[in-house]
């Protein structure tokens, strides 16, 4: 099919307003939140219904045209990077909240619905949607699902995958399936939903998503504690969690981050080598009791200052400072590279030391802001794009940092995803066999590899291939089953 014919076919499905094909307009979609990879897609389509998504995918399948789904485009690993000669399916017009079912604690939404809208929709009933990535005021539920987004409160409440209960999915061959029980638990069969959530848009497109909502906690208490350095702050983190408390959030910022945040949003943070924000929520009696324990642990770890949020306003100020951290780097550096790695919590101290050494070795500043409770680091490598070679150096340093995470038993990514950005690192964490077996799943969902190709796996497998020796089963020999 020529490009002109494809445009016509898509216009037939979507009308002329639903198809973007002029080059200057296509440029808007050349990258997602990770801006160092750019590809101009052949075509951008803007469906308004699940049926249209199905028809688009069907057309792509019939014609062998690759496609990429995109929500709000805030992803940080290039997961929604378009493919050349491919179609970019933008889901921002599928933004209806279809159903609110309080008795069963469920909300059914379309993929373009913005994360925060879900909580806003059910707030009056005393409920909220727990996963809260920093991007929650702009990122879409469909994108959250694809990336299995985390957030500051996932230490206690889990990730997107723990809150998506069902999905209507358009598979890469255009067929539609409903996976996960939705409102009913434990659907028979494989846990396809668990495999689908976090598959970075490579297994199909979710067109209806059933989310779990939770009752708002009775009490929320938040404090800010200042320490001499990240090591002492880390000691407090271990002490809190070792004491059997599961806080709603524990976030750490180092001095460089504090400096940047102060310049940008002036939350009035104390001067310190490291800051912790600790939040507890739950029943009043429990929170009160455990909050005292948290304060005690901070004191034992020589906190120079402990500030308890007196009201919602002060709490919001603490969080404003934390959530502004990435953006605030602009106030102390021309450019920065956001890294996302995970280490076991007990390795935090050793890893931070190695990051400091690397920073010195490369002559580049690294700011650390992270979800300390679950060991999810977000080192920000500061550099100047105008200085020759510095951008490459920064990327190399960021790469070294994830290798350190792996050496200490951690992971390449805690919430941003592998996408296009970290494909090259996958063999450092997984063997060829590991990745081949993962791709068996890909082959079951997308045998022609047209759904978001060129992401996650550095070496794509042809789906006819099979790793390892293959022997025909007698059932096959007898002609009772086919080879697949």
């Amino acid at each position: 099919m020529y490009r002109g014919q494809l445009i016509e076919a898509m216009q037939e499905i979507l009308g002329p307003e639903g198809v973007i094909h002029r080059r200057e307009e296509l440029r808007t979609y050349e990258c997602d939140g990770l801006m160092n990879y750019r590809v101009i897609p052949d075509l951008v389509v803007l469906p308004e219904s699940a049926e249209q998504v199905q028809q688009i995918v069907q057309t792509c399948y019939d014609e062998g045209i690759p496609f990429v789904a995109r929500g709000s485009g805030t992803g940080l690993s290039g997961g929604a990077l378009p493919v050349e000669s491919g179609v970019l399916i933008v889901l921002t017009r599928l933004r209806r909240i279809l159903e609110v079912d309080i008795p069963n604690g469920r909300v059914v939404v379309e993929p373009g619905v913005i994360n925060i809208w879900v909580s806003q929709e059910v707030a009056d009933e005393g409920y909220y949607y727990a996963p809260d990535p920093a991007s929650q005021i702009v990122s879409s539920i469909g994108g959250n699902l694809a990336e299995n987004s985390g957030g500051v409160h996932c230490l206690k409440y889990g990730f997107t995958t723990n809150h998506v209960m069902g999905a209507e999915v358009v598979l890469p061959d255009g067929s539609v399936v409903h996976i996960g029980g939705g409102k009913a638990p434990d659907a028979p069969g494989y846990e396809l939903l668990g495999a689908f959530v976090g598959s970075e848009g490579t297994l199909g497109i979710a067109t209806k998503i059933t989310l779990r909502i939770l009752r708002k906690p009775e009490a929320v208490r938040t404090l800010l504690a200042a320490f001499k350095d990240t090591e002492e702050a880390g000691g407090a983190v271990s002490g809190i969690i070792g004491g059997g408390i599961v806080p709603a959030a524990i976030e750490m910022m180092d001095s460089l981050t504090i400096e940047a945040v102060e310049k940008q949003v002036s939350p009035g943070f104390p001067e310190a080598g490291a800051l912790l924000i600790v939040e507890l929520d739950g029943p009043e009696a429990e929170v009160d009791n455990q909050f005292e324990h948290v304060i005690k642990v901070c004191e034992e770890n020589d906190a120079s200052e402990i500030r308890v949020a007196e009201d919602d306003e002060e709490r919001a100020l603490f969080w404003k400072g934390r959530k502004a951290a990435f953006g605030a780097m602009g106030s102390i550096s021309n450019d920065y590279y956001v890294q996302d790695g995970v280490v076991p919590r007990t390795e935090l101290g050793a890893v931070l030391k190695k990051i400091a050494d690397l920073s010195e070795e490369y002559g580049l500043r690294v700011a650390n802001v992270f979800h300390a409770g679950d060991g999810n680091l977000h080192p920000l490598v500061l550099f100047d794009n105008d200085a020759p070679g510095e951008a490459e150096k920064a990327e190399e340093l960021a790469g070294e940092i994830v290798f350190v995470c792996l050496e200490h038993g951690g992971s390449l990514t805690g919430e941003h995803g592998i996408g296009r950005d970290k494909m090259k690192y996958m063999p450092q964490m997984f063997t060829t066999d590991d990745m081949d077996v993962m791709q068996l799943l890909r082959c079951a969902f997308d045998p022609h590899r047209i759904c978001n190709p060129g992401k996650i796996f550095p070496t794509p497998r042809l789906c006819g291939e099979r790793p390892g020796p293959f022997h025909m089963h007698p059932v096959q020999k007898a002609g009772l089953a086919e080879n697949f």
Partner: protein
Amino acid sequence: MQTQNIPTEELQGIVGEEHVRESSAEDAVDGVRPSIVVEPGTIEETGEVMKLASREGLAVSPRGGGTKIGLGNPPRQVDLILSTARMDGIIEHVPGDQIVRVQAGLKLQDLQESLAESDQMLGVDPPEEGATIGGIVAANSSGPRRLRYGTVRDLIIGIKVVLADGTVAKAGGKVVKNVAGYDLSKLFTGSLGTLGVIAEANFRLHPIRETARTVFLEVDDHEKIADVTQELTHSSFSQFVLDALEIRWEGDRGVIAALFEGIEPAVEAQSSVATEVLRSHGETSVLGEEDGEEFWESFARRPWDAGDVGLKIGAPPSDLTAVLASVLGAAERAGVEARLSGHAGTGVTFAGLSGGEDGLVEVVEEVREIRIRRSGSVVVQEAPLTVKERLDAWGAGGDYLGLTRRVKEKFDPGYTMNPGRFLGGI
């Protein structure tokens, strides 16, 4: 069925002579007796055994504690039972990270005892005694506390599997937060050994809670049960957090029980609010930690005995009244005795049925028909072979059946693993 040629000596060469034995009658899976039982001691040996089995066209059934060996449809063929009994170690437990890595053959009870020394636990509590970690993952077993901790899928963070062709592969890792690669840990959860052998699993752990309180209410009208459980879950003043919310119905009386765990002042505050809610419905009792433990031991048991039909019904929690009514109504019409229990907070109901075979089949078909219309499910978890021959254990499956089959055929193209036991004849 054609008898397979069993390469006993080669198997002995892999795992050692003493770890290969002829099967006995107890090794049968729903009446299908295997030829041989093999107990590999390592993941490498497991890989070699699988390679050999695939080469010889042997059907393999992995087995842990054997507590769920009757789950699913009768297998089309079983030649070799692959027992994980010797792979029963804790590989790594880091209390500070609240994670554990274990081998599949480890018994849950042994794991919990070991973790308790560090005041930690794995948040799964299936009622079957002697269940192994591998079996719990494969069968996706759960218990009352799933209301708080979720099910295996919510707690598993990494896995190592051996495929039918002997390939050893891992996914996930030992950190709780991790989105690198596909989440095969979840895919293998509930796969009933049909995708490969689960050899190792990693989990996030939780602190053991300081104390517990159980509050329960007796009722004599099954229609009242759902009102009470909904009120407990949603009432505007019930701001407490429930660890479990369970029900039982037997004869003409029922019990609703709520469990609160945590630190003393919180448990005290929450359980007294709950007591107040329950008192408005009838006589309410409160149990402390020790009495509560005894209470839950019997209360959490499945409502069936050997020889009965046991159903697991999945429905939206707000449909509880309809679920109870449909089972009790169908049972009465068919002259079958029905007992019920369930996780009211999450929408899982168990039904134990005893009576004549025709009546049993009738009840299952009727209840299943209603549930499937409402996007739920009815799984036969236990039944005499003669009943199983007349019913599919899983039901028809939804529009995802084709995809399910494609997944199976990618991971196990030769149908070596547990053929026939799973959904859709997989």
